[in-house]
């Protein structure tokens, strides 16, 4: 009976992998304008919209909570906590999406290298998987304990945001467009040569 189960599992596994390989959308052609634009957009989202420390600090600010708790009625307090929780969850979701974006970019690009290393690739795949799981765990933590459930979360998150921003900028620097050098224009007005 055990043998039958093993063989059936192999058959079912192959069938599932077939399904996955056919359903999964292929990666965009690397080096294309689309891929570069997508990667740059991800980097820009991290740097400008998502991770600046002041933005994160603002929506996690403890003084806002203290003020609302002291001055607002109970219904407003509840609404405030709900909103903060929603913001925090949206932030974690966005960070997870950027990790996914980085993962897609790495594996979409690395497959072209002849000298790619199996151990490096397995290690990276594992790290990406663990990191995404950790994001999910953090998401659950916020869902269960709320935005201010753990007092240190807010501060750490703000710090993390700043660190993430600088790390991302450094590690994805190769995506930044090269500085354009202005062509010197020495010609006089009305004279066409440059």
């Amino acid at each position, binding site marked *: *009976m055990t*043998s*039958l189960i*093993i*063989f*059936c599992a192999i*058959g*079912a596994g*192959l*069938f599932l*992998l*077939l399904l*996955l*390989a*056919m359903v*999964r*959308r*292929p*990666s965009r*052609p*690397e*080096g*294309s304008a689309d891929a*570069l634009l997508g990667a740059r957009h991800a980097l820009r989202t991290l740097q400008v919209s998502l991770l600046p420390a002041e933005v994160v600090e603002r929506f996690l600010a403890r003084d806002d909570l203290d003020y609302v708790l002291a001055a607002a009625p109970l219904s407003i307090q509840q609404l405030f906590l709900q909103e903060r929780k929603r913001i925090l969850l949206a932030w974690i979701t966005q960070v997870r999406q950027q*990790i996914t974006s*980085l993962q*897609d970019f*790495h*594996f979409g*690009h*690395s*497959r*072209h*290298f002849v*000298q*790619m*290393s199996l151990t*490096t*690739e397995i290690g*990276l*795949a594992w*790290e990406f998987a663990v*990191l995404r799981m*950790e*994001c999910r*765990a953090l998401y659950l*933590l916020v869902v269960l304990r709320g935005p201010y459930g*753990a007092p*240190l*979360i807010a501060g*750490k998150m703000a*710090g*993390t945001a700043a*660190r*993430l921003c600088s*790390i*991302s900028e450094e*590690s*994805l620097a190769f*995506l930044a467009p090269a500085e354009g050098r202005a062509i010197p224009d020495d010609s006089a007005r009305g004279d066409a040569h440059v």
Partner: protein
Amino acid sequence: MLSLILWWAGISLEAVILLRSVIVRSFLRYPYFYTYMTCILTIDLTRYFVYWHSPSAYRGWYWPTEFVSVSIGYGVILEILRQALGRYQGVARFISGIVWASLLVVLAYVAYKSATVTNWSAANTGAELKRDLRTLQAIVLSAILILISHYRIELTRNLKGIIVGYGIFIAMNVVNLAVQAYAAAPLVDASRHLESYLFFFPLMIWTLTLWSYQPAAAPPGVEELGSDYESFSRRTKGTLRGFRESYPRKLKE
């Protein structure tokens, strides 16, 4: 009578697939696959000839030709490997060693069985050997599919057809042969009856998907992003390390 009709239909579909490959000039684009199809058609025609003229000799002819067809099934796997990962030499390098090693194992296994088993008509021995070979093919094909999914490699309609057709055939074969070996009697009878129809599914898929030739998209250049794998993976690792340093600490609080 139904079996005979399906047999003819199967031979006809094999002939149609080969004929279309000549008409649309795809034979040389997928040489391993169409060589496999040519062998399968030849085997089916000789089996039909033997069955028609000397039914008593059919069983004796069936098993040796069955092992030839199982062994040359590796042609399809090699074709999938060549077409799907041919442009990605680094990824192909991961798997090609496994494919060639398993092919050698298959050939050695068949040679060993040929030398030691005298009675090929013994259905149990034949079915057991066939099941083991198909299982090995299923494992190799699974490894290739994992790489295709992980690196999100683009596949043409033709190649998708080859992969899906052969994959479904192998998966059904492994389960069917295991049921024949280990399940209860009524299931075994149904399974043996089903076996003769299994190859019909991939033939239909291949007829539809290989009707016309679809060329693969031109390989993209990567020069714009740099060509040093070491520094590229180091950058990714650096970013990951940054993320990792931050998240676990938060989770502990």
